[in-house]
């Protein structure tokens, strides 16, 4: 440590404190939640399509590359916000509203997942569609976008909010924001 009677400690102290505090911050927040990866290499993006699905399309295993990337579609704030944008841009609210659902599409908030809550299943539901009116989106979204959207839908229906979840929209509000766990406030499926 430093000689105690030194009269001008400020700069030294700040540097010395920066290191441990920085490590603590690192541990606390995790860079992964904040990183902004705007471009995937095309082979990586292509590999994202390789979900090992069960024959009935329910359940399965995400491709290896999803884990190699660090599961960004579940816990990365930027990817989730992209998913939120896609949710609005690609017509999801027409049937699912802001997640509450309507006569044309089920609620995404009520904790009831018709085909299971796993992200790979949600991905498959969006990609391939489901009987009962859910159209396939594979021709309208890239695989990366499908994953972003799936991650967002999963966060939307989560019971405990993730710190990476998006905040409210600049729109008329119909439910608590994603980072306030709207699912907790949603009525259960009748």
């Amino acid at each position: 440590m430093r000689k105690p009677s030194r009269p001008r400690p400020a700069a030294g102290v700040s540097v010395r404190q920066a290191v441990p505090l920085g490590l603590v911050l690192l541990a606390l927040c995790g860079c992964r939640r904040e990183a902004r990866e705007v471009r995937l290499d095309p082979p990586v993006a292509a590999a994202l399509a390789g979900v090992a699905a069960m024959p009935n399309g329910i359940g399965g295993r995400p491709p290896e590359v999803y884990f190699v990337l660090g599961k960004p579609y579940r816990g990365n704030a930027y990817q989730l916000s992209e998913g939120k944008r896609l949710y609005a841009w690609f017509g999801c609210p027409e049937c699912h509203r802001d997640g509450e659902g309507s006569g044309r599409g089920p609620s995404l908030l009520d904790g009831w997942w018709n085909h299971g809550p796993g992200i790979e299943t949600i991905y498959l539901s969006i990609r391939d569609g489901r009987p009962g009116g859910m159209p396939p989106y594979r021709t309208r979204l890239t695989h990366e976008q499908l994953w972003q959207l799936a991650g967002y839908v999963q966060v939307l229906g989560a019971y405990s909010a993730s710190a990476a979840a998006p905040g409210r929209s600049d729109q008329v509000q119909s439910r608590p924001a994603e980072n306030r766990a709207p699912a907790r406030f949603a009525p259960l499926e009748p």
Partner: protein
Amino acid sequence: MRQRVVADLSGLPISGERHSSPSWWGTLAFMLIEGTGFALAIGIYLYLAALAPAWPPVMPPDLAAGTGVTLVLLASLLPNALLSRWTDAQDLRRVRLGLLVMLGFGLVPLLLRILEFGALNLRWDDGAHGSIIWFLLGLHTAHLLSDLVETAVLAALMFTRHADNPRRFGDVRDEVVYWYFVVATWLPIYGCIYWAPRL
């Protein structure tokens, strides 16, 4: 530099009272900071109200709890004034009593405040109107709460060996001034939340 003694200060009191006490001025400065904060919050309220096509967008808050708080706060002015007088007289026994009474007058509005949040008929995320009235109420509640803690600490202090001391009485005096401030800032907020929507 050579020094030449031209004044003897030894006759001065060893701690200042009121405007010759730095902490009295410090309290004023903090009141100025917080008063600016309150003024800005009320400014935001008026700005949003002026912008809205209809204000309030929903029914105005129920009057009972807020009015109750107002009455309690107004009633507290009397014991607060008495406490101020006893402090000037450095009457330790009565100052203790006064602080305990003020503790009560700090606690009751806080309890009523819980009802008040319920009586707003709005949540903080029910539009900008809900946001700003929760903000105003929250801001004032923070002041009530911090003043309550301060009063409690002072009251406890007055029962210790540190009590009978001009400096402690100075602290109580600052606390009295601060309570006036807490009451004074409530009145415009009360007007904004409860009466502006009824105009």
